């Protein structure tokens, strides 16, 4: 990657980051929020993006890597436009989450870590979503869908494919 292709935060983002750092006793505390910003702006956290975050916060790359690799919500690989995450933990499992996840894999023809050919979907099985009253729970790009059924799951996928809002 040449220097001109290196990811770069916008001026507005840099100002936001400067203000954020002041809210903590040390700039290092801003690492997680800044990683979220980077992920939002660049889709996922490539090594170049992680280096950029390290530079902005005056940290070593390894300090950033330690955090990125520890937390499941920081993504080092690109994923589909819609990331469907099924919670399969106890309460969701007791209410049919495993069957739902199997159905999702069937409909989309992909496994975890893969992207559908049209670039629209990726799927993942996640640990407790903390919304057990709504079991089974599916997060679509961080928006919770609760009490999901085989029918509602299929309807959601159809809507996305048709370009409709979900």
């Amino acid at each position: 990657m040449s220097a001109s292709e290196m990811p770069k935060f916008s001026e507005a983002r840099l100002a936001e980051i400067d203000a954020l750092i002041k809210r903590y006793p040390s700039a290092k505390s801003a690492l997680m929020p800044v990683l979220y910003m980077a992920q939002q702006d660049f889709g996922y956290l490539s090594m170049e993006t992680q280096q950029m975050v390290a530079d902005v916060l005056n940290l070593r790359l390894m300090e950033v890597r330690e955090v990125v690799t520890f937390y499941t919500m920081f993504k080092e690989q690109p994923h589909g436009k819609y990331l469907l995450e099924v919670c399969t933990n106890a309460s969701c499992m007791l209410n049919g989450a495993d069957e739902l996840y199997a159905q999702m894999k069937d409909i989309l023809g992909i496994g975890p870590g893969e992207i559908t050919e049209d670039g629209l979907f990726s799927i993942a099985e996640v640990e407790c979503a903390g919304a057990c009253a709504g079991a089974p729970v599916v997060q679509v790009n961080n928006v919770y869908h609760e009490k999901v059924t085989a029918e509602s799951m299929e309807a959601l996928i159809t809507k996305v494919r048709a370009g409709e809002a979900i």
Partner: protein
Amino acid sequence: MISSDPKKVQRICFDNIEVENMHKLEVAKKHGAYAFLPTVLKEFDAEKIIDEVKTSGLRGRGGAGFPTGLKWSFVPRNTGKPTYLLCNADEGEPGTFKDRDIMRFDPHLLIEGMIMAGFALGVKDAYIYVRGEFLHEYNVMCAAIEEAYAANLLGDNILGTGFSMNLLMHRGAGAYICGEETALIESLEGKSGRPRFKPPFPAVEGFYGCPTVVNNVETIATVPAILEHGGAWHAAIGKPNNTGCKIFSVSGHVNKPGNYEVPMGTSLRTLVEDFCGGLQHGTVPKVIIPGGSSTPWLMGEHYDVPLTYDDIMKAGSFLGSGAIIIMDETADVVAVTRRLAHFYAHESCGQCTPCREGTGWVERILTRVDAGEGTHADIQVLKDASTHMAGRTICALAEGAAAPVLSMLKHFPEEVEAKLKEEQAEKSS
């Protein structure tokens, strides 16, 4: 929408939870939010607040049940270092989903509690550490905090009282262990969330080495009512040593899963039958997980247990966060245990060998057993590995991982045996 209150029981944190648009400052104020705050900031001092909270008997609602007033009194004064207040909104224990409702439906209650607690502890900077997946709740809280700043309820010289405090939302990023208070502190310092050795306790040496109080959302949200009505008022609700109300998150095989706040001491049967619409199948639960997935299982014979810290401990488990997972007669207990074992193996931070290796080992054996490929020898290893993990690590995750496995082996040996390879071979021969 939030579950309604069919019995009109006394509630504290959920008093206004069904009010439409309660998340907006204007509506919250109409329903009493911040009304008593000026009195606290002008007429109370730290000692009086801590005394009231001690009198109230409030015990931490995050899981450990430690007396809140006592925790606050441990914070050393005049150390020359700032004191920090951190609200634990990480809420990652399977079965727990109560703090989410306070944050999304009544965020100003939590903010008001943070201001009062911050005032009592002499805090200038407070943080709410929310689990990363709760993006909606994070956004609702951020908007409410912004409104509070605009109304001079946060920031410099709050309501002209001379007290100043900042409050910032901070998102985690998917790590159950960050609900452990020292791991939460590490995470807030911008590191991987690995629990610290205690002592030193956070009250003395916490966030960046400074005195720090970490309290759960529900605990903090109870403070405004305690100060307004008095500690004695709170102490009169519930049972001695188990005072006040508690939000119970009920999920699994019940007809109306949800969050229900009831006075402590209400029986489990009442909660499930009167509030949750009973079980999906059968009349008595097969398994009751009383306080989140890390607590030992209770059986149907405990259906009438009063929901208090002490009664549940007497029955052989813990009240924990009040997250009750109910399994009826249709539950495959081996499959559920296998799933929980996967969770703990996935969420182990990896710094202690018994946990890092033990949780993975247990998961692999249980996967084998659940698939009909396990043997009798596996059962002994499962028992030994689980027993040896518990109590041999920095934090309680390993103990939590062992609880469901040991519970399953103790209460359902015949269901485990029925899945073993030897048993299956015998059946088919």
